């Protein structure tokens, strides 16, 4: 009876298995690298906005304070987006000839909302409170990057859970103003030991998730 498998069949099989495994490992590594990279988190990709607004001009060139437009950032969970009235309050007087403001004028006339596109929106199950962070001394640029250099607003950080936790585990590193580091009613003040292990309220699930 003739041999079914040649003498090299074993070698080929081993080679195929090794190559297969290598491809699987490589694919896994590539996938891992991709989700860790900025591209998967839309870093650097601008969102379509109702008007071609430039932070570089307003925050950079004119040095407007962030709070001029995002007025709730120190008081509310949402930082707040500028209303059409806020924009046109200045632009009725300066740079008021352009047709770019048509969406804003229309919103003002109809009393409808201006739909800005958020580039830093967190997922549904995360509760982010701007006021809690600014009051605790976290600067805007810690999460939003150097907005004043962005002609078109883009995401600067992944805003992944890992990104949040890096800071929540070691808040001191990102705090701009040291005075606000340990506020009496902030969560940071509630660190405690249990069986010698430090428990920080800042890293508990329910602190950020809902």
């Amino acid at each position, binding site marked *: 009876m003739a041999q079914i498998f040649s003498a090299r069949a074993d070698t080929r099989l081993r080679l195929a298995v090794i190559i297969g495994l290598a491809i699987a490992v490589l694919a896994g590594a590539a996938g891992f690298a991709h989700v860790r990279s900025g591209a998967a988190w839309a870093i650097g990709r601008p969102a379509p906005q109702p008007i071609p607004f430039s932070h570089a001009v307003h925050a950079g060139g004119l040095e407007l304070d962030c709070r001029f437009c995002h007025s709730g950032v120190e008081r509310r969970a949402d930082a707040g987006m500028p209303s059409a009235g806020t924009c046109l309050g200045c632009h009725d007087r300066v740079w008021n000839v352009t047709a770019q403001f048509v969406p804003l004028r229309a919103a003002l006339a109809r009393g409808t*909302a201006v*739909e800005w596109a958020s580039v830093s929106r967190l997922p549904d199950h995360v509760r982010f409170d701007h*006021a809690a962070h600014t009051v605790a001394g976290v600067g805007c640029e810690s999460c939003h990057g150097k907005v004043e250099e962005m002609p078109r607003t883009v995401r600067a950080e992944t805003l992944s859970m890992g990104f949040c936790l890096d800071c929540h585990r070691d808040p001191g590193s990102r705090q701009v103003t040291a005075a606000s580091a340990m506020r009496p*009613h902030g969560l940071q003040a509630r660190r405690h030991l*249990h069986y010698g292990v430090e428990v920080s*309220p800042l890293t508990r699930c329910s*602190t950020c998730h809902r």
Partner: protein
Amino acid sequence: MSAPTLPRHGPDPSPEPAQPAALLAAPHGTVERRDALKLMGASFALAALGGCDEAPEHGHPLHAPARASDNAASAEYATILELDGLARGVLVRTRGGHAVKVEGNPRHPASLGATDIFAEAAVLSLHDPHRSRSIRRGGRPVPPAALEAALASLRSEVTARAGQGLRILTGPVSSPTLAWAISEVLAEFPGARWHQHDPLADDAALEGAMRAFGQPVATVPDMARARAVLCLGADPLGGMAGHLRHARDWASARAAGRPPRLIVAESAPSLSGARADHRIPLHPAGMEPFARAVAAALGAAPPTGDETHPDAPGAASALLAAGPDAVVLAGRGASAAVHALAHAMNARLGSTACRQLPHPLTRPEPMAASLADLAAGMRAGEVSHLLILGANPAYDAPAALGFEAALRRLPFSLHLGFRQDETARLCTWHVPLPHPLEAWGDSRAFDGTPAIRQPATASLSDQARCEVELLAAVRGTPVTARAAVEATWRAAWTGQDFDARWAGALEGGVAGEAPAPLSLPLREDWDRPSPSPPAGLAAVFAPDPGTRGGAEAHEAWLQEMPRPLTKITWGNAALMAPSTLAALGLQPGDEVELELDGRRLLAPCWPLPGHAPDCVTLPLGGGRRAGGPVGERRGFDAYALRPADGAWHAPGLALRPTGRRAPPVTTDSHHRVDAAEALRSVPPGGALPQPGRDASLHRDWPYPGHAWGMAIDLDACIGCNACAVACQAENNVPVVGPLAVSQGREMHWLRVDRYHHGAEENPAASFQPVPCMHCEQAPCEPVCPVNATLHDHEGLNVMVHARCIGTRTCSNNCPYKVRRFNWSDHRRLLDTPARNPEVSLRPRGVMEKCTYCTHRISSARSNAANEGRALRDGEVETACQRACPTRAITFGDINDPDSAVSRAKDSGRHYAMLGQLGTRPRTTYLARVAEDEA
């Protein structure tokens, strides 16, 4: 003290839980999911709103208002919602311009901060995709100009006849502005007439007041003052106007240690009957003899013959003992003679615990007679043009009246309604009515307190017209609802600063004071005994606690919420005493044919402990034939059997088994906990033994900051379900549909268990709301293979949906059975503007449960921290706590010894449900105070 009767669950008549036949065909829920999707879609899907286009692929819309305003992202509006024409004040929370939650307005006398299930469901109907959006003629959409032309030709035709032939039919009207609009039409067309229709109206109360005082007054009890309350079919805690107020007053009086003795005589158990200190099941025919016997014992009526009800002397002596703090209330279903007897008894007692107030309705009248008058006119050809404003007589008029056939023959009939309901289908014209949360208006509360209704959200239908706007268009002098309401109140507030008063009324939600009580002498000829009705099987009609006569039948939250006493969902059943059921040789769930005066109806029968024998309660509000998939064909339509005069009970009911089974879907057998261990009661002033802490080798977890806990006072709970619906609204809890409910897959995070104590003929009932217990030694936590449920630093048992792999071991190990598993993906249908954006949606295959409203805790904590202060007690209110009419639920920080929840937990009535398991639940209970009835 006699041997305590152990609490027990309701009837579990069949060894197998009752299940619809369809379940057998689809064991794995394939049909069920499609059904559920349909229902959910009907409840939650929302057609695209103007300005809310599809979200772009990247970047999510942030809605900035057109003009700078500080609280545009989230705002609360004080407004009102009506029930039977009477207002309850609410606060509507909006996010990004969408109404997402209704809560009670603490400043409004009919709410005091609480809500009922119907108010909670208002956001659901607001976003209902099956609401009517366009003007229709003959069922086809037409442009608004066609309506204007039709109204113009109506005007010219009717003017030629000085208004003859024009009739207006409304629901009960307490709105001053609508009354003005109607009076303007009647003034312009003198031959026109206005009728009112309310299937749940209590015409006998009006007639009784006329007999007693000669004028239509409303009798309003003061439950805080009363020491003894005799209810003759009245349900002050549930179905009566002002029920939220009465429930609050009743609970505060109990909490203050001066409990009003509640004596309830009724045929079908109500919420008041369930919490009565003494309950007397009475056949409807026995109500008047009983009332007369009590009145005779009080000396308010001539003595009756020697036959007297055995309970009458006891009730009379309880009333006499309370003296002027006693009050007798007659309710729906009691005859005019009983209402007059109640007035006479109050007069005899010199009762200061009730007030006679001018009737809050603009024109109180017997509604059934008003509708019958209209129907007779229609049949006689006297009606050429009929405007039906916000009523649905084609469904909820008694079928015996023949209103449908008469309506069909009218040359011009216009229906103004929120849905394309049964009446809309028969009318030549249909005009959409805006939702109460979208439109301007005004109304009066049960005590006459006026309030202005302001829109909390932009109208989702641009063709919708208010009643006032339509009536103005009929007169040819168009006016907006806002202008009309402003004009009404400008006239009412002459001589005052209108703008300030108006702003105050809108901000506070109350537009004035309640009218002063009237002091009226009893007339001489008040006592006109009714002929005694024949004995035998009687039909008793009652509003369904979930669908409220059918008007709320399209609210999926309400359909799926188990009815307080029967635990029936998605339908209704002919309810009768277990003894009657047995005497008729029926099994629970058997289908029977009911016959009354030749009218027939098929219905499943179901036992209800405590129901009076020899009568059958037929809940009104099932079997809708139009209006949307949620409410259509759920249960049977009891209006088909109701006598033409709208009577609340009728003798001569015949009942025949058909031999088929049609069991209703009930949750009575779901999530059972051993009743003897779950529920405790103490005698008045008594205390429970407080067990010490279990010994443990492990050190306790420290909670250096806050430690959240909840205490639920079972003595205050009236089982109204407001907490459960509020939880559903707040936490985006999905609706699963009848089939999934029958499989035990309902998703309610908070259930209200009902227990009966004592004999089946007349048991007492207890209610126990059961949310997640947030055990400190939670049995669910160690069994999770992926650590998806764990404790946080404030003692919350948190559920990480993203980690959950759906083994359901946690639910198996939970002794309280409060964890719910997502058998289907409900996210797509929940993700609408109606959802609460503060609470994430859960995917398929994960567990979910009560979170103690952790989002409310977070936002309160942030607010306090941002202001640099500590959290105040009472600053965090859970949704269930906020809704509760009796303030049975207390929530707060148990680390703070002065917090309300700590004080509640220090009470002698404090106990932990299944505390012997050592779970150390954070949610604990205060035992019910039960008088030991010798």
